[in-house]
């Protein structure tokens, strides 16, 4: 059982972070970055994040695993069909990776290969179903596996998106399909998070709040204009605009979201974008 699964099962407030594979084969810097993360249970390894082609997430997750760093392997439906997804997951299991975050994935149009054929042979619910099948010893067509993988599969949600009922029906499906934890999109809205966590109560599935470290008002505007599903409220933008030290204000904002999460959620997922050294400040009470 992974530390992530154990801590979430034991009800311990859990912290994860994330790293992105390099564009190229130079992995030393990102391995160092992952090793410097302190107080973190597991590190997400992103899968061609933002539809930008990078080194394989599975390869980097395996390299980190070899160094004793627990990972959460992100797997998207954008680049691989059901055969490739199944074989990659079996490969991940053979390499010792248990934690998964199973996603639809950003559309190829956003990234650096806009002419690539977007696959989406499966959606995230079907990817979860497929993973549950592998864990039960069967591939998608019901053929038995020689050696059954064990995973701790998670899913993503944007808890403040509207209409809530439409968003939440998919959350329910994801739980039915075997999602054991949720990692949220970056959150800045306490009321929205509260509504979501109240709805989550009967589903009994832990939630890690997505926390994005804002460096400036400019960054907040960029997120609002260009990143699907991320919404930085006006009040937060205003705080960054009027702050003497916007970066320090960004850390303070992240710390507040950690505070709400300690009250309502089971952990946090930190997206610090190269400022891993500030994680202790963000987690400080």
């Amino acid at each position: 059982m992974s530390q992530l699964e154990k801590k979430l099962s034991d009800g311990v407030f859990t912290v994860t972070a994330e790293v992105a594979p390099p564009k190229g084969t130079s992995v030393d810097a990102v391995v160092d970055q992952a090793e410097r993360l302190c107080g973190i249970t597991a590190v997400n390894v992103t899968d061609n994040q933002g539809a930008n082609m990078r080194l394989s997430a599975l390869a980097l997750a395996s390299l980190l695993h070899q160094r004793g760093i627990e990972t959460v392997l992100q797997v998207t439906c954008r680049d691989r069909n059901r055969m490739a997804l199944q074989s990659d997951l079996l490969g991940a299991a053979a390499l010792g990776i248990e934690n998964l975050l199973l996603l639809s994935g950003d559309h190829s149009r956003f990234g650096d290969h806009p002419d690539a054929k977007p696959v989406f042979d499966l959606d995230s619910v079907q990817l979860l179903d497929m993973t549950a099948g592998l864990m039960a010893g069967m591939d998608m067509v019901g053929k038995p596996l020689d050696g059954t993988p064990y995973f701790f599969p998670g899913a993503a949600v944007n808890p403040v998106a509207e209409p809530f009922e439409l968003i939440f029906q998919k959350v329910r499906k994801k739980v039915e399909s075997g999602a054991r934890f949720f990692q949220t999109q970056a959150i800045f809205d306490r009321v929205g998070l509260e509504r979501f966590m109240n709805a989550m109560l009967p589903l009994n599935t832990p939630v890690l709040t997505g926390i994005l470290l804002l460096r400036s008002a400019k960054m907040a505007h960029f997120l609002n204009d260009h990143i699907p599903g991320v919404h930085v409220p006006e009040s937060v933008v205003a705080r960054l605009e009027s702050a003497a030290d916007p970066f320090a204000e960004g850390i303070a904002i992240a710390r507040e979201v950690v505070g709400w999460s300690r009250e309502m959620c089971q952990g946090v997922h930190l997206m610090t974008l190269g400022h891993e050294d500030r994680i202790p400040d963000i987690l400080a009470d």
Partner: protein
Amino acid sequence: MIISERKPLDEIRKIVEPLQRFFLIGCGACATVCKSGGEEEVFQLQEWLIDQGKEVTGSVVIDEACHLPRTGRDLRHHKSAVQEADALLVLACGGGVQSVSSQTEKMVIGGLNSVFLGNVKRFGQYEEKCSLCGECILNETAGICPVTTCAKGLLNGPCGGMEDGRCEIDSELDCAWHLIYERLKQQNRPGVFARRVPAKAWSKSCKPGRHQLKNTGR
């Protein structure tokens, strides 16, 4: 209807450059409606070729260029003009171009790009509603196809990129799942939301598609 648009003239110019005589073919169905391969566009292309110093041996607008026997018949009617040409230049969809190429040994040049199976919104404005996937889910999705009108073709609800009911790839585009949700709610039925939709059987749209009308013996 098959939506098509003319290839850039620069691209056509490069293909016709080493050749001299052309027989022109248009299509009386979709390409006429799209104003990419009707009488008018065939005539314009003829004028353009003459401007380029080329010869046009003749032309025909086939009633439906996707109809193989009809295409063969029309080519036979224009046998001598076809024979005189170095190449047949076709203003029809990819289906039409291949009707022609299957009926002649001559070099065939396609002058259009086929874009999608489209509905006409108003004159000159088309929208893709159906992608001919072979396994229709419309009865459960309030008559709105997520396979086609969701950019990712998701079957179990919207992705995390939906914002204010709009699609993540284009804020001008409605999120298909938001439309399905609103319509089903209005009709007071759960529809597709009542179940987890399993992975799609893409074998139903295996290429190349073949279909034979069966005698049902009714």
